[in-house]
């Protein structure tokens, strides 16, 4: 989903960014007159090279690996079907170690030295922000599988496209709509909000708060915590003291399970619990005491293995066959980014970056995460799936077009109840 993790260390000094930007500016000057087609005309025969930088080492290497595998599967399927524009697709992947400075340097190299024909995005808002800026300066189309922070879409870029159904601002859509659909007597009267200070989490929680307050849900607690926070006992105690019926957490990764464990230690069980990101993690159920404890927890997803969108089941099967394990959300998002790029190239019939961007702005693309359509800033006009843990399975409960069940657990069962 809209993941964002903090870097633990920066391998290169800030100077690297400066150098990258200077290189970009210099090369941009050299190609300014033909920026729209400069990458389209290079090597009209031979493979189409698609460049990307990914954090294959460092703190998010585990999830980044599956993201790259999504790209690999997409490329292999394209090649098996005859390639793009009759040419084979070749991936040119660099490792940035989850360092934004290195990401900027990598995309500069991909464009200026490797002369790739097309670009695909990287992981998280943290890395996609500098990468998309480099691409924009070079007039390159930039389709990103991750990086849903609202701030990425307020910079005036017209070549940026987010390959998920929604961003942080639309994340609450389905959940708030569900709350609004409840009879007034069943709506939770009070809510507590707690969020990591993160560009993909805290803005979403702020939107939750505004919209739920408009529905008459009173805010009894609001807290923003640092990304380094590992002990949530005090927060949980303060929340328990205010006795909210509903808790919304802007979690990013492990903090989701850590927070739940602190609630569990106090045996405080809210009627409704919504967390971003964390409940989709593979390790989440076991970290909070098993799938039974996850029962009733809501989250938002960009993709689900059980969704019935065209091609999704084929993707799940092909990925599982190729890599020996079912795909993750990150793998699906990368695959989707490939689908978006493929649709544009196929429709336009060339690698003209401006024409590709224009086509994407004017059309809807069918993908495994549903039909995608973008506004002028590349912000998708849809919303994420609302999912809920139900008896050991993460079920999609909204929108109705993608729902895998019609049942919604109105009241979260106690932590230790059996599934």
């Amino acid at each position, binding site marked *: 989903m809209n993941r964002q993790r903090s870097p633990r260390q920066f391998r290169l000094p800030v100077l690297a960014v400066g150098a990258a930007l200077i290189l970009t500016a210099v090369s941009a000057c050299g190609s300014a007159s033909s920026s729209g087609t400069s990458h389209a005309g290079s090597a009209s025969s031979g493979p189409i090279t698609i460049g990307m930088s990914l954090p294959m080492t460092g703190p998010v290497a*585990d999830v980044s690996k599956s993201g790259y595998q999504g790209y690999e599967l997409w490329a292999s399927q394209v090649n098996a079907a005859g390639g793009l524009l009759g040419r084979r697709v070749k991936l040119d992947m660099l490792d940035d170690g989850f360092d934004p400075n290195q990401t900027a340097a990598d995309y500069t190299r991909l464009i200026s030295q490797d002369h790739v024909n097309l670009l695909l995005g990287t992981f998280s808002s943290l890395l996609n922000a500098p990468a998309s800026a480099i691409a924009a300066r070079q007039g390159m189309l930039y389709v990103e599988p991750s990086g849903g922070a609202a701030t990425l879409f307020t910079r005036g870029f017209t070549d940026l496209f987010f390959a998920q159904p929604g961003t942080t601002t639309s994340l609450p859509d389905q959940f708030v709509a569900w709350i609004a659909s409840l009879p007034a007597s069943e709506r939770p009267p009070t809510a507590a909000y707690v969020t990591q200070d993160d560009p993909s989490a805290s803005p979403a929680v702020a939107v939750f708060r505004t919209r739920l307050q408009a529905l008459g849900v009173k805010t009894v607690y609001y*807290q*923003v*915590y*640092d990304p*380094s*926070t*590992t*002990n949530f*006992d*005090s*927060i949980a*105690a*303060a929340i*328990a*003291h205010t006795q909210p019926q509903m808790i919304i957490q802007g979690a990013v990764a*492990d903090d989701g*399970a*850590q927070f739940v*464990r602190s609630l*569990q*230690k*106090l*045996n*405080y069980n809210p009627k409704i619990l919504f967390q971003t990101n964390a409940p989709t993690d*593979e*390790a989440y159920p076991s*970290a*909070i*005491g*098993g799938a039974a*404890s996850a029962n009733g927890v809501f989250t938002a997803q960009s993709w689900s293995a059980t969704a019935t969108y065209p091609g999704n089941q084929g993707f799940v099967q092909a990925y599982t066959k190729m890599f020996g394990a079912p795909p993750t959300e990150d793998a699906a998002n990368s695959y989707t980014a490939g689908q978006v790029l493929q649709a544009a190239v196929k429709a336009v019939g060339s690698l003209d970056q401006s024409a590709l961007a224009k086509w994407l702005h004017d059309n809807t693309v069918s993908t495994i995460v549903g039909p995608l359509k973008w506004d002028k800033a590349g912000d998708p006009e849809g919303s994420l799936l609302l999912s809920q843990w139900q008896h050991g399975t993460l079920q999609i409960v909204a929108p109705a077009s993608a729902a895998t069940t019609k049942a919604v657990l109105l009241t979260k069962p106690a*932590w*230790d109840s059996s599934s």
Partner: protein
Amino acid sequence: MSELLQAVIFGVLTGGVYALMATGLTLTFGVMKIVNLAQGAFLILSAYLCWTLWAQLGIDPLLGSLIVTVPLAALGILIYRFIVERVQRVDHRLTIVVTFAVALVAEAVIALVWGPNPAAATPPYFNEAFQLGSVSVPRAQLYAFLLAVAVTAVLQLGLKRTWLGHAITAAAENPEGARLIGVEPKKIGTWIFAIATATTAFGGAALSFLYQFTPDSQDTWIGLTLSVVILGGLGSVTGAFAAGVLLGLAESVTSAYISVRWAEAVPALLILLVLLIRPQGLFTLAARQDAAA
């Protein structure tokens, strides 16, 4: 009022756990003047071992900690005899570097064995709490606190009532004087490392069911345990316990009444304050370095 009481209870219980985790470091730092930076990695190793015993054999982490003390004590002896003691002979200041290296290697080994995913034990009592009116006393936290009290008491008794304890105390108070009366530093060092590393089994057990942990969680805990040791004073087990409780209380009350974000800065502020007012720590032993003179 109940909010304050809840914050105090949380602070005391959490602080006890901090003290439990810092006990080993108190001994190596206080007596041997060795900042054993590998102590955080040993803590995580203990947590993984306790977690494995719980996940694979269903052994409660509190009970599992007793089993884990044995391999951890052996590890402590090996690390001291084959690495620290040899480096110490060359230059005592290098011990901090070599224990840092041990920490890095240990983290890599832990990651290889258990993988990068977070782990946490969930014994039956981890999501239960005693209710005292409007105040909750989490059972898991209470049990960890009681374990901390027990370990501190046993160590304190050992230091006061046994020959080894007297020797360790003597070495802490007056290293040169202790040598003159036949306390052999290498032997004492081996014992201290064995005990210090073994006690991480208890801290690791508490960690395994109170919090999630990953191979690199040592970064968080080594900083906190160092804070406890500096606050409490070198070599004082009861001082470390009191410092842990003080730290936990300060964090908890700050979270409740000021901000969760300020709670992160509490250890640093407390250390600064103590270093300004009482540089030897709140409960330090009165060291004498004049015997050789």
